[in-house]
């Protein structure tokens, strides 16, 4: 049997609230500390305790960190789902089974390791409740032995998790040990998967996208944060509160350079952001689909009255309440045009935790420069799972507060009109309440207004205002982060955005290696589209737009933007609530290309 080193995926099937999170994090970090590229995904229910939950860990020497559809190793800890979990394992699959869980007969070509977990826990503690929590560490030890994990890295990872609770730490160490020793003494290794130290994670960090976004906000100089709790966005604000309390409150005086307000609902949360943004603060809120629906009216107000605001949307599965703890890219079109009338908003599309951090900073600059609400569209997979990354760089630019006139600047002006396009970029100047010079005073309204911010219903006034807003949107194209393009003059193009990126990276390699299909790639980072997107679209004969929703939302926007090229777009869609995997991308593309380019055609036609 040939060993397979540093290329496997583990799925732990357990029960929500059973304490498996710590065990899974220890496994993930131990692999990471061994220098092996890893990713961990928590597939959890909308529930506090009692419902099934799965955690998948993927180790990939090649650095692929998207979800893998097939699992090589299954850890069975949940009696309720055990039969289905086991049945999902194919030939050659490795099953670590808590012996007390009854499962139907497992075919002989699966490799089963039965662990008497109940018995192994007996000497560790007599406390029944603790046994239930600590039992998870047994499979850490078993997998440690089976995969050949470095013991010191497992210990280190466990220390980092529980270092502040010495009693718990001792118990957990004992359980890891017990699992390890049992496996060592009783199992002959019949599976090919092994972990071995390599050097691909040196200096890297592991962080979830929500914490990364929170760090971005912290270093972006946020001063007002308002929110209403909603999965999967809450942990962004909770992380941010943690950072703000640590780094932005004077320990001597107790005084804070920030305000966090937990609002009564999302309408109020966005209202507070607009109020604060109008008054000159860097204000943000974070929400998910249902909250965004509630914010729609106010975001239209922000667009029309031209008030900076940063809105994070950690997308989850809709429509309606949908699957609150599952991932989707379902709010793209809605966020882009949220609110009635001709409303459109700039949207940032982070595809990595580093993007979450950098866009967390940049969103404020854009919102203040453009004087408009700016969305950051993350998703549950990116936001709540841990991802490897290079450490984040400190912002090398000061901030951009946009066109705000001070009293001194006003003094030298003959007059001030809030909505006059002085510079020809569609962006007017604003003043803040508190301005002393009466010339700088204006009245903000969501009703029709002219350049001087006076109420108007005159057809020409209205149209002029709307045309200027359209011009401002054109200005936005060049200010948004550009797409990342790999263009080597191939016929086929792939366009993706957000967390889908990681499956696309792997899928393109699969297409090349397995089917000889070469693709160029454009990773979108923002809406509206820049000229570089137009050029990419114009240059490719067929373009696969890969996204995680049913309705091909980004493809729809692309077709609307480039109607002359609408026939070039094909959609690859993934929308079952789980993070997209590479096979779900490469499969449909290979199938379609094989049909489009039948075998026997000269090789050049396939390139």
């Amino acid at each position, binding site marked *: 049997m040939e060993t397979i080193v540093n290329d496997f995926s583990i799925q732990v099937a357990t029960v929500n609230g059973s*304490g498996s999170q710590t065990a899974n994090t220890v496994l993930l970090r131990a692999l990471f500390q061994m220098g092996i590229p890893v990713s961990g995904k928590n597939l959890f229910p909308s529930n506090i305790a009692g419902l099934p939950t799965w955690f998948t860990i993927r180790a990939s020497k090649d650095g692929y960190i998207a979800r893998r559809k097939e699992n090589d190793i299954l850890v069975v800890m949940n009696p309720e789902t055990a039969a289905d979990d086991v049945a999902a394992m194919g030939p050659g699959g490795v099953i670590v089974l808590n012996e007390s869980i009854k499962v139907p007969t497992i075919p002989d070509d699966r490799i089963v390791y039965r662990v008497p977990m109940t018995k192994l826990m007996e000497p560790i503690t007599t406390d029944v409740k603790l046994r239930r929590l600590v039992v998870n560490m047994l499979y850490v030890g078993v997998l440690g032995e089976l995969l050949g994990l470095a013991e010191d890295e497992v210990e280190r990872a466990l220390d980092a998790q529980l270092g502040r609770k010495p009693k718990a730490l001792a118990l957990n160490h004992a359980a890891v040990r017990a699992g390890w020793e049992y496996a060592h003494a009783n199992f002959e290794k019949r599976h090919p998967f092994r972990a071995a130290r390599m050097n691909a994670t040196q200096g890297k960090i592991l962080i979830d996208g929500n914490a990364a976004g929170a760090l971005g906000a912290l270093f972006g100089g946020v001063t007002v944060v308002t929110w209403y709790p909603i999965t999967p966005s809450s942990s962004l604000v909770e992380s941010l509160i943690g950072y703000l309390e640590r780094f932005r409150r004077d320990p001597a005086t107790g*005084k804070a*350079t920030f305000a966090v307000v937990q609002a009564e609902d999302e309408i109020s949360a966005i*209202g507070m952001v607009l109020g604060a*943004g109008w008054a000159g603060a860097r204000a943000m809120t974070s929400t998910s689909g249902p909250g965004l629906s509630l914010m729609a009216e106010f975001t239209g107000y922000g667009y029309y009255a031209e008030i900076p605001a940063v809105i994070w949307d950690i997308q989850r599965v809709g429509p309606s309440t949908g699957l609150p703890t599952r991932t989707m890219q379902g709010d793209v079109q809605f966020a882009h045009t949220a609110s009635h009338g001709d409303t459109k908003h700039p949207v940032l599309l982070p595809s990595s935790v580093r993007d979450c951090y950098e866009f967390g900073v940049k969103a404020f600059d854009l919102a203040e420069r453009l004087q408009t609400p700016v969305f950051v569209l993350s998703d549950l997979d990116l936001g709540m799972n841990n991802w490897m990354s290079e450490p*984040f760089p400190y912002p090398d630019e000061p901030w951009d507060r946009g066109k705000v006139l001070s009293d001194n600047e006003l003094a030298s002006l003959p007059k001030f009109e809030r909505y006059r396009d002085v510079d020809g970029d569609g962006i007017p100047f604003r003043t803040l*309440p*508190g301005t002393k010079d009466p010339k700088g*005073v204006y009245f*903000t309204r969501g009703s029709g207004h002219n350049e001087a911010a006076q109420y108007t219903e005159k057809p020409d006034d209205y149209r002029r205002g709307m045309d200027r807003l359209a011009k401002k949107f054109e200005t936005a194209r060049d200010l948004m982060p550009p797409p990342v393009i790999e263009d080597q003059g191939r016929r086929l193009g792939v366009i993706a955005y957000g967390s889908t990126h990681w499956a696309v990276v792997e899928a393109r390699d699969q297409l090349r290696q397995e089917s000889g299909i070469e693709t160029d790639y454009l990773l979108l980072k923002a809406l509206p589209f820049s000229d570089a997107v137009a050029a990419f679209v114009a240059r490719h004969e067929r373009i696969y737009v890969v996204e995680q929703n049913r309705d091909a939302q980004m493809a729809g926007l692309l077709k609307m933007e480039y109607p002359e090229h609408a026939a070039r777009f094909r959609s690859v869609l993934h929308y079952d609530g789980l993070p997209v995997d590479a096979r779900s991308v490469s499969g449909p593309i290979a199938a379609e290309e094989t049909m489009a380019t039948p075998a026997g055609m000269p090789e050049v036609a396939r390139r």
Partner: protein
Amino acid sequence: MSDGTPKVAATGAAAARNRVGLTRADYDGAKSTLCPGCGHNAITAAIIQAAYEVGLQPHEVAKLSGIGCSSKTPAYFLGHSHGFNAVHGRMPSIATGVRVANHKLMLIGISGDGDTASIGLGQFCHLVRRNVPVVYIIENNGVYGLTKGQFSATADVGSTTKGGSVNELMPIDCCAIAIELGCGFVARSFSGDQKQLRPLLKAAFAHRGTAVLDVISPCVTFADHEGSSKSYAYVKEHDAPLHDIEYVPYYEDITVEYEPGTTREVQMPDGSHIYLKKLAEDYDPTSRERALQMIHEARAEQKLVTGLLYAEPTLKPFEEELSLVEAPLATLPLEQVRPPKSVLEAVMEQLKTGKGMTAPAGGG
């Protein structure tokens, strides 16, 4: 005795100036586009006069409102103050945002009975609950004017629309709700009673938390008929003031002496005083229980009881709860809000080792 600086006719060549050197005209706004005779215009006039008399600095004030006839009025007063006409029922959230961004601004929020008691009831309650410093004026006429005469949630049981339909639903009493939620300044008044309204406004300007003023303001177009319990004639007839109100700002000497037992005094944190000269009964505005009881009695007796219903001027305002730095958040320089590079590096180091890393919430 005055409730501010002396009133002077502004007709002379040199108009009179208040203590900050401004004329009454400096507090004017654009011309009202409401119906002639609208109660709201009288409230607008009272705000202008009160602001002039106590000498508010227009640039230190922001005017906020929701949607409706009442919410149009911030355009008609204090033309030298920034204004924000928000969406329907959501002025409280705007006010909260403005205040946390810049707690040096004094906020005057104008709302109506539809804007506050129906679509905006939730935001109103939470503003009061947080004690965000806003002078929150409800211009209450029991009717939706801008959409032509539908009942609002403050219409009394038995009151009729112009078309003759009868309201059978219990009215929402915004003062009772505010008191219940711990508001430290709750008053009810009548747009036709400038003598009462002005000192109440001045006192509200001096309050450090949410000040709620429910001002009955007859709609001359859709609710001034017989059968409406908010018509001018009905309100005039049923108005039962609790007390005569005098307001003495902190910068004026107290010159008047009251006979013992005739007057109650409320001192504001800035040193200003409210004097409540008793009329029918010796009403104690510092008793929450008495205030709520009185509101229920008044409803049973079909009286419109006006005056300072409840005062607790020492409550902590929202920004103290948040423990903000002295300078407004909106004005903080980059150095104060972007932690140094060393902080980022320390966080990155932690993320390498996993020490101090917390598991994402919601997981197993």
